[in-house]
């Protein structure tokens, strides 16, 4: 177990820079999730930690060592791949034992470690089978078992659940959490699924286009997004965004009509162009004093526990979430307002949050 440090890590392919200076300090035993949309560079970042990609700039340290020049086998890491990467011509036991065998671990210790991992992952009856005889979930568990027996300093997960169906994914999330509790190993986990990120992470790194937009705990990222991208990426259904301009202290005049009040903050000077962000659950029906958005109901989604009402107004579409059945009908006019404390303001140009 060890800490991992990334200092201003960059990656370029030829002249094109794809990862722009990411820094991260992972403490011993932490479970870090790197989340972002496809193509944001999260897998590339993980592979640089693993040694599967060259590091163009910056430094990566595992434990006390800078590992930039070290080969993957010397970095004391283990990796779980998206497509499991199990050796098809070896049995489950041999797959898990492979790394230990290479390092010259004595046979009885190999057996002890494999049995232990098999126990944790419920693989004991499958040890003599070949990968092609296993289901997707079983294969993924074997891949995890292979990582566990090595007792590495860091676990690396590259979208391990993406190839599984939805139900299996939920189940495997628990397995991963259980595994982390049992082993306490520092882990770096890459995914594009923000639900996985929210449930598994101690801390999250939200990435977009090669940059780390925010690093923080799930609740921090949810309640206190640093940028518009983070606010929109985390949470489902997505946050509502409407463009507008600050008309007066505490009030935003929205493009297309309507006004929203917000809790006062430092750099919200009058005239500034902003994007207002409000989560669907923080909107209520009914006009406030001198504020509100009025629009026509375009769609109502009854989800059972919640109702999502889509309201179309001149500035776009706003979604309102209410925890009960809606009494409105499509075509009705509705005015809604927001809790000022829950209104986020983002700079209309950079997307940075105005705090």
């Amino acid at each position, binding site marked *: 177990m060890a800490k991992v440090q990334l200092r201003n890590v960059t990656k370029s392919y030829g002249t094109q820079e794809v990862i722009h200076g990411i820094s991260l300090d992972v403490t011993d035993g932490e479970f870090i999730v790197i989340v972002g949309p496809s193509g944001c560079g999260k897998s590339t970042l993980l592979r640089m930690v693993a040694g*599967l990609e060259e590091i163009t700039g910056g430094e990566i340290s595992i434990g006390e060592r800078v590992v930039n020049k070290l080969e993957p086998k010397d970095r004391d890491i283990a990796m779980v791949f998206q497509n499991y*990467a199990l050796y*098809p011509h070896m049995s489950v036991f041999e797959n898990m034992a492979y790394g230990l065998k290479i390092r010259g671990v004595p046979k009885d210790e190999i057996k002890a470690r494999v049995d232990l991992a098999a126990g944790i992952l419920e693989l004991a009856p499958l040890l003599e089978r070949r990968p092609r005889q296993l289901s997707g979930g079983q294969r993924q568990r074997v891949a995890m078992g292979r990582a566990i027996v090595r007792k590495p300093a860091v676990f690396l997960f590259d979208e391990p659940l993406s190839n599984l169906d939805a139900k299996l994914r939920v189940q495997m999330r628990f397995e991963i959490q259980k595994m982390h509790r049992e082993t306490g190993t520092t882990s770096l986990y890459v995914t594009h699924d923000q639900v996985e990120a929210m449930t598994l992470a101690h801390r999250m790194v939200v990435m977009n286009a090669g940059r780390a937009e925010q690093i923080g705990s799930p609740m921090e990222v949810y309640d206190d997004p640093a940028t518009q991208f983070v606010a929109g990426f985390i949470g489902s259904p997505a946050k509502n965004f409407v463009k507008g301009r600050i008309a007066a202290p505490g009030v935003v005049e929205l493009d297309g009509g309507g006004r929203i009040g917000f809790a006062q903050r430092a750099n919200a000077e009058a005239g500034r162009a902003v994007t207002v962000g409000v989560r669907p659950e923080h909107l209520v029906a009914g006009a406030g004093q001198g504020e509100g958005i009025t629009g026509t109901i375009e769609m109502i989604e009854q989800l059972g526990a919640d109702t999502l009402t889509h309201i179309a107004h001149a500035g776009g579409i706003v979604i309102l979430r209410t925890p009960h059945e809606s009494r409105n009908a499509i075509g009705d006019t509705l005015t809604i307002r927001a809790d000022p404390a829950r209104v986020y303001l983002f700079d209309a140009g950079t997307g940075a949050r105005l705090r």
Partner: protein
Amino acid sequence: MEKRVVFRSSWLPYALVAPQMAITLVFFFWPASQALFQSLLLQDAFAAKTQFVWFDNFRDLFNDPRYLASFRTTAVFSALVTVLGLSISLLLAVFADRVVRGARIYKTLLIWPYAVATAVAAILFVFLLNPTLGVVTHFLRAIGIDWNYLLNPTQAMILVVVAAVWKQISYNFLFFLAGLQAIPRSLVEAAAIDGAGPSRRFWTIVFPLLSPTTFFLMVVNVVYAFFDTFAIIDASTGGGPVQATTILVFKVYQDGTQALDLNSSAAQSVILMAIVVALSVIQFRYVERKVQY
């Protein structure tokens, strides 16, 4: 494996297959059955008298020391061609796969020998290794080897093996390269993370996973050595010296044209047919196994 949609016509399908069926019947089935038939006969050189002798021809062949020698020669020849051909091509394919730059250039430069006719390849090596004029002969003499394949049976075998392997390198290389590139990168990466260096990765992961390709190429190379190499023998050693390079297919030709023993030649053809069929069956069986893990 059937199409869901078919057309209906009473005459069209027959018209479409007719050309191929006609050619196949006339130039394949008829001659093949003739060969089978003739192998059971004894005819004199002018086919004036014909006698049905059942398997006497075959029995004579297996009692004929020259035929058995030819069998042995063919076995040695095909073993050498296969082993050398596969090893050299695998080596080249492995490095062509690893090289980051220039992979495509190497590939182009290594595949064109396939297009050279075996006869032409033989002539080229005959020229290189000509006992009096050959450039390579000169070089061998300089390092103390007296080269004359017209007199030395072992050297004659070396010559034909070299020519045969030279031509086959590209074919093997291409298939090995394709096989290597079909192995998922993540397997190699996982092995690297597990601690395996390049050599170990190759022998414990890549090579086992390459076995379908290897086996397939083994069968193909053996078939190649048995049949496609006729031209090499004819164009270089003529089966000599003293029958040292008379492989089975060459003997069929020799006995048929020079000795004019058509029945023995036919019987030899039948035996060769049996061997090819056996090899083809093995190949089909294994190609099915190619459906991976």
